[in-house]
């Protein structure tokens, strides 16, 4: 029996949810506001919230100094490319683990996840040397490979969790109707797992978009994505907060907009199977 929610309790819950939401969003809001200030206003004490002279000067400076669209395009290619390749590998892998588990499936899953426990800097030099020798330094294909491998355990884990919620009987029925393995995965499993696959896709695009260790260390001029674009606006000597905020806003805007439009899919996917 569902518990009755009193109006007072509802009001408290709503206020609490809004409070947490604002708290989480505030750094982004502050970054956006700072991007419209002058450098002097950006460091004003007490801080200026809305009562400042709004200016687009920082955006103009950033546009003049950097080739934003090149960085943006690199980010798109690297994040979408690594996610799609990751999905191509992970869907069959997760299918096998969810529907035809072996004795060691759990161990394999745990082993895959354990690769995420190694600090990336621990393998920086070997990977840098491999990239140097194979000519992959400062190339988009190199970053796609690295980010695919880095995010693969998460993709497999997420898909495995979603696939486990799908009754095996439905796949058996499809097999009895004469569906082959390819048809079973493509026409039966995938459509049923669309919310899960969509949220995996979105989450991994976001992860790859924001990845700032490998993208900074393995690129120079050609393949540098938006993370390198942001890093170029921090300075140890001189005021830079307003320009850095403008660059950050430009870098996060595409992913924020994408997240905004796909939030239904994201929430649906992330809560998939949470309530039975």
């Amino acid at each position, binding site marked *: 029996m569902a518990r009755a929610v009193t109006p007072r309790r509802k009001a408290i819950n709503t206020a609490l949810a809004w409070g947490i939401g604002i708290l989480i969003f505030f750094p982004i809001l502050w970054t956006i506001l700072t991007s419209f200030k002058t450098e*002097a206003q950006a460091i004003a004490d007490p801080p200026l919230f809305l009562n400042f002279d709004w200016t687009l000067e920082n955006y103009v400076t950033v546009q003049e100094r950097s080739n934003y669209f090149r960085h943006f395009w690199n980010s798109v290619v690297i994040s979408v490319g690594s996610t799609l390749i990751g999905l191509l590998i992970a869907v069959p892998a997760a299918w096998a683990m969810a529907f035809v588990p072996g004795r060691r499936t759990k161990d394999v899953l745990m082993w895959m996840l354990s690769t995420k426990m190694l600090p990336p800097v621990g393998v920086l*030099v070997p990977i840098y*040397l491999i990239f140097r020798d194979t000519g992959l*330094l400062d190339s988009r294909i190199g970053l796609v490979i690295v980010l695919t491998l880095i995010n693969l355990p998460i993709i497999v884990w997420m898909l495995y969790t979603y696939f486990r919620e799908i009754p095996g009987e439905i796949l058996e029925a499809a097999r009895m109707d004469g569906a082959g393995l390819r048809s079973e995965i493509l026409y039966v499993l995938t459509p049923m797992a669309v919310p899960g696959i969509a949220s995996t896709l979105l989450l991994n695009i976001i992860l790859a978009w924001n990845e700032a260790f490998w993208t900074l260390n393995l690129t120079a001029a050609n393949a540098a994505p938006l993370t*390198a674009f942001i*890093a170029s606006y921090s*300075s*140890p*000597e001189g005021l830079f907060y307003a320009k850095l905020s403008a660059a950050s806003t430009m870098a996060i805007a595409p992913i924020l907009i994408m997240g905004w439009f796909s939030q239904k899919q994201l929430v649906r996917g992330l809560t998939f199977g949470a309530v039975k």
Partner: protein
Amino acid sequence: MKTLTRALLGATALTGAAALASAQETTLTIATVNNGDMIRMQGLADDFTAQHPDIALEWVTLEENVLRQRVTQDIATSGGQFDIMTIGTYEVPIWANQDWLVALEGMPEDWNQEDFLPAIADGLSVDGTLYAAPFYGESSMVMYRTDLMEAAGLEMPEAPSWDFIKEAAAAMTDKEAEVYGICLRGKAGWGENMAFLTAMANSYGARWFDENWQPQFDSEAWAAALNDYLELLNNYGPPGAANNGFNENLALFQQGKCGMWIDATVAASFVTNPSDSTVADSVGFALAPDNGLGKRGNWLWAWSLAIPAGTDDEAAAKEFIAWATGQGYTELVAENEGWANVPPGTRTSLYENEEYLAAAPFAEMTLESINAADPTSPTVDPVPYTGVQFVAIPEFQGIGTAVGQQFSAALAGQMSAEQALQSAQQLTTREMTRAGYIE
């Protein structure tokens, strides 16, 4: 006929594309740090490419610490990602000794190497050979509020002592009005609080190591320097000083909250810029303080352009460096952005230029500060290392930051000065033993 026309057009387009490709057959990738002078250089680089249509430029601009890690990793692994690197006075002697840098020999005659300030050139040379060309140089000095100094009934000498600084800091402090007598770096890091403290300690007669590489944090000179530093900041400094670096202190000074600030000479142009600074018209300058021991507490640094060994485009890289660090570039900046924006601290001729001296009121003090620092003999007692605010050995980044953390903790009140020095002595001894300098 139509086919022939298409074929001819296609051939013309291909020839055009090929001609364009061969016109820019060399691409130089330049790794640089994000500061005003370097960004200005990027903006003016069309002048170079107009003179050298066969050379294209690609810029990789990064934050200082990211840049340092990135170029170190690339040069140590012969990654070959960069043709020109922006590096500091710390890296040059270490990398040159590893044969990682191309010696700047055979440069064009009109580059005029002899014009570089001797203190700066010495810091970038090994055995008399220059391995990096200084793009801009800096030292540190005292920047102070002339109005507050006057109100305190004091007059800043051109070359103050640490005793005077203490007296002035006490007289200028008005905590209720949020005016603090002195602002200094407190944030931990070899290039943060340790840059200031090492330079300060030099003027107290302290040194990092004796001639046999034995750490010297157990000396009386270090204790005196650290105690005075803590006393200054605890009594007359802003709250939370242990978190303040260059930018935090710059913001405080520009907002009128610091009576004095001892930091990089490059800050002079920021604090006197009326569009950013509320105290632009009341800033005075003085040499970094001393204790009468023959060494002042100022550092020496130059952001410089160097060519990594193994680059395919050494000749083109030298052409670019000659352009960016030549006297012609100075005139180009002056013409486009005014004399006050010319990169300072590298050439003697700049400080003989009346137009520059008129446009930059801090010019003479910058020159005097640079000349007062000697990277080859930074301390009162002899030392086996070079470098004023750092020790030019590869291990220093790690050790310097670890020691900086102890001193920053002492400033935050988490330990006493004595404990911080003891801890610094222990960890430095351990690391130097590990590295094989001492047994």
